[in-house]
């Protein structure tokens, strides 16, 4: 039995067991809500859970947390906890789990959902009055639902992270930085859920179809947004990959620079949209080259002054074109600063500020670009070793490169344990000779 299977069994056993024990206690101590609403809320939870989308923006939480809070209020004081803890079971198994016959994900999911929802339901039970609900109670219930939703999300996020860290050994997952930004939207969804629950109790079930209609439509639009955003990046990336494929020496360069930039930026604390910006900027940093006649790019040896300025002109033209794409405008600026030096020298388009260092993102990109250029084989020389490349980066830190970015990159690269460039020293000597030969010429 390999360790991964063992840790999976352990995590699934603990999560599933804890959930079962909790359900058993709730089942004996409280009343199960035997009513048709239980089915409706369960089905709704399942539907929204299966439509869930991963988004970076704060506002865009999935409405599932709201459904749990609404249901808990509707079930009433005695049944809130067990009701909430059982409707979430509708969302534990995804179609993908069934198709791929997975057992681990559904069990862990069911476990963490039951535990989180039970906590939320218990908070609602505390906020609800013991008798019939009155208009005067709305404020208190809504507040309780807000608190319950935040606890639900916190429990949910930490249980999932714990499971993933244990099983997949991903130590660099940092859930709490994400949690902080999610708190306001979770609280809002919870308060809304509480309000909707009280409305349902006071007004009647005719509110339900309207409610689900609004949320379904909003959620579908949000899903379309996040799919389109992925489409943006993959369209751009796909084009660049296809165009690169025509040019053997730079093949994969863009993707690697995007990857190096991303891990460096993450190491320096970039998250969410800011992180995406760095990655997309790296994707387009060399797009200007795509429009340059191939004969120039493949040319062996140094370029003449005319050829050099032709190459730069083209880079500017492409920059002008991409500037028209609203969402790319900040990335184009970052990308166009990647040949600027930390001490203010170098060249570049709108991102180059003479005499001043370019923006932080450009400095990250410059390090990533230089590292990949050194560790991959070019038309004029072989690849250098990783050690040589890092030493070279450190040597130019403070003049060409931002020292902080260099160190962040070295740390991030060490954390991944990956290696780039030529493996042996013999190659390096040869490569260095070649490199120096070209620089002298």
């Amino acid at each position, binding site marked *: 039995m390999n360790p991964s299977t063992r840790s999976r069994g352990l995590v699934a056993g603990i999560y599933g067991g804890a959930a079962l024990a909790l359900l058993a206690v709730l089942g004996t101590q409280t009343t199960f809500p035997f009513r048709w609403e239980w089915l409706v809320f369960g089905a709704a939870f399942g539907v929204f859970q299966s439509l869930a989308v991963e988004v970076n923006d704060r*506002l*865009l939480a999935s409405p599932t947390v709201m459904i749990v809070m609404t249901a808990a209020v509707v079930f009433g004081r005695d049944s809130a906890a067990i009701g909430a803890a059982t409707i979430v079971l509708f969302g534990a198994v995804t179609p993908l789990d069934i198709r791929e016959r997975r057992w681990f994900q559904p069990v862990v999911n069911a476990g963490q959902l039951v535990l989180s929802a039970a906590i939320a339901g218990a908070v609602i039970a505390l906020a609800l009055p013991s008798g019939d609900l009155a*208009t005067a109670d*709305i404020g208190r219930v*809504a507040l309780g639902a807000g608190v319950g939703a935040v606890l639900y999300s916190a429990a949910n996020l930490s249980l999932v992270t714990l499971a993933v860290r244990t099983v997949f050994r991903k130590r660099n997952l940092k859930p709490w930085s994400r949690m902080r930004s999610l708190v306001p939207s979770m609280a*809002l969804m919870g*308060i*809304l859920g509480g*309000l*909707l629950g*009280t*409305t349902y109790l*006071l*007004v*009647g*079930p*005719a*509110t339900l*179809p*309207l*409610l689900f*209609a*609004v*949320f379904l*439509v*909003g*959620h*579908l*639009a*949000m899903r*379309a*947004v996040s799919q*389109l955003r992925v*489409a*943006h990046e*993959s*369209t*751009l*990336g*796909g*084009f660049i*990959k*296809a*165009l690169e494929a*025509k040019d053997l020496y730079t093949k994969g360069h863009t993707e690697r620079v995007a990857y190096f930039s991303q891990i460096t930026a993450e190491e320096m604390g970039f998250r969410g949209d800011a992180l995406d910006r760095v990655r997309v900027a790296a994707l387009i940093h060399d797009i200007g080259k*795509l*429009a*340059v*006649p*191939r004969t120039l790019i493949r040319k062996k040896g140094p370029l003449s002054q005319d050829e050099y300025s032709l190459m730069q002109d*083209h880079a500017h*033209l*492409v920059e002008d*074109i*991409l500037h*028209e*794409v*609203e*969402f*790319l405008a900040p990335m184009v600026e970052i990308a166009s600063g990647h040949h600027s030096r930390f001490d203010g020298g170098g060249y570049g388009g709108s991102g180059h500020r003479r005499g001043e260092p370019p923006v932080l993102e450009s400095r990250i990109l410059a390090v990533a670009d230089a590292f990949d250029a050194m560790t991959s084989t070019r038309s004029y020389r072989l690849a250098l070793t990783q050690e040589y490349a890092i030493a070279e980066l450190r040597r130019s830190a403070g003049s060409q490169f931002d020292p902080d970015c260099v160190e962040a990159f070295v740390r991030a690269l060490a954390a991944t344990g990956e290696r780039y460039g030529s493996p042996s020293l013999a190659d390096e000597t040869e490569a260095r000779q070649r490199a120096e030969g070209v620089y002298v010429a």
Partner: protein
Amino acid sequence: MSTLPNRLNRAVGILLWAAGLAVGVMLASTSTRSLSNLAAWVGAIAIADLIRVPSPSGGRISLVGGAGLVGVVLVESIPTLAAVFMLGLVVSRLVAALWSDDSRGSDLSRTLAGLGILVLVEVVDAWMLEAFRWDGQWVELAVILIAGLLWFVADAFVRMLGAFGLGGASIRFIWLLALEDWPIMVSLFASAGLFALAQPIIGWWAIPMALVPYAISHVSFTLLAGTRRTYGQMIRALSKLPEVAGLSPEGHAAATAMLASNMARGMGMRPDDVTQLEYAALLHDIGRITVEDPADEPDTADLARWGAEIIRQAPYLERVAGFVEQHDAPYRRPGEADDAQVGIEARIIKVAGAYDRAHRIHEMEPVEALEVLHRRTAYDYDPAVVARLRAVLRRSGRLTA
């Protein structure tokens, strides 16, 4: 520069709005409601009319329908409802004029149609209550659903009438385009219904309860419209790569796309298909980027295949890649009536691209270029598509004959 018909239009418009104001005031004076209550309704309707949400069809939709629906449920008297609705629109129009923002404030025909629907629903509602003693939440829910549906259909219909004959788009296309806005209508009317049902019972809590869900979908729609727009911009930018590299005449991609989408709109294609066609027309020459030397003139079939290969790397452009791959193929081969494998999109791109190439590179007059296409309708260019191109050129004034 206001020409005479323009001034006339303005004068008629002002007269109509003045009439609306007069009728509104007259009707309001018969209402039993307090002045402050009426003012609150007028304000709510004006504000709703000034807020616009970007719609999937590319326009902007005012929220006045939602406010009107709340009125149908909560304002019992028809004259009062009509009064607050008309006064609300007059106020919103005035505010828009003060902001000199013509995109805000509803246009008259659409809102009058809407008012008609509201009154109709109100009448039916009152009649059901009188004749059958039908009342209660489920009846209110039915009224909300029916009113929303009628409003949506009437609005789409009025838009179709208004856009008829403009820009050469077919009726079918405009109607389908108007129907694309259903998600906005659903969330607007459902939130309004929620508010109308709950407000009498839970009081002002109904405001956050109904507004927040709507606000979330409002933000979603705004983001969606923005993301769609920038996606189009990106395709447009990528389409210029061969032109910047000097491998394709400048402006060719954009001009081909413009012609192709105009042709498709005139043929009544679905709006979504028109967008895909537009992307394909923009990217139909992207294969040229692989050409090593601008002096080379490679086989056009190879170019189409290379282009499709590049586009296929983007997972969301599979259909677009298919159109580009096919666009070089003849629409029929010797001995066949028609090659069903070659879709209408590919035929349109082939015709539009060839026309623009003849016009742009060989500097032919529109008539000349069109004649070249006509002469090759045996295999290369579908005669029906060439006829459509002729119609588009004539409408845009480039072809006088």
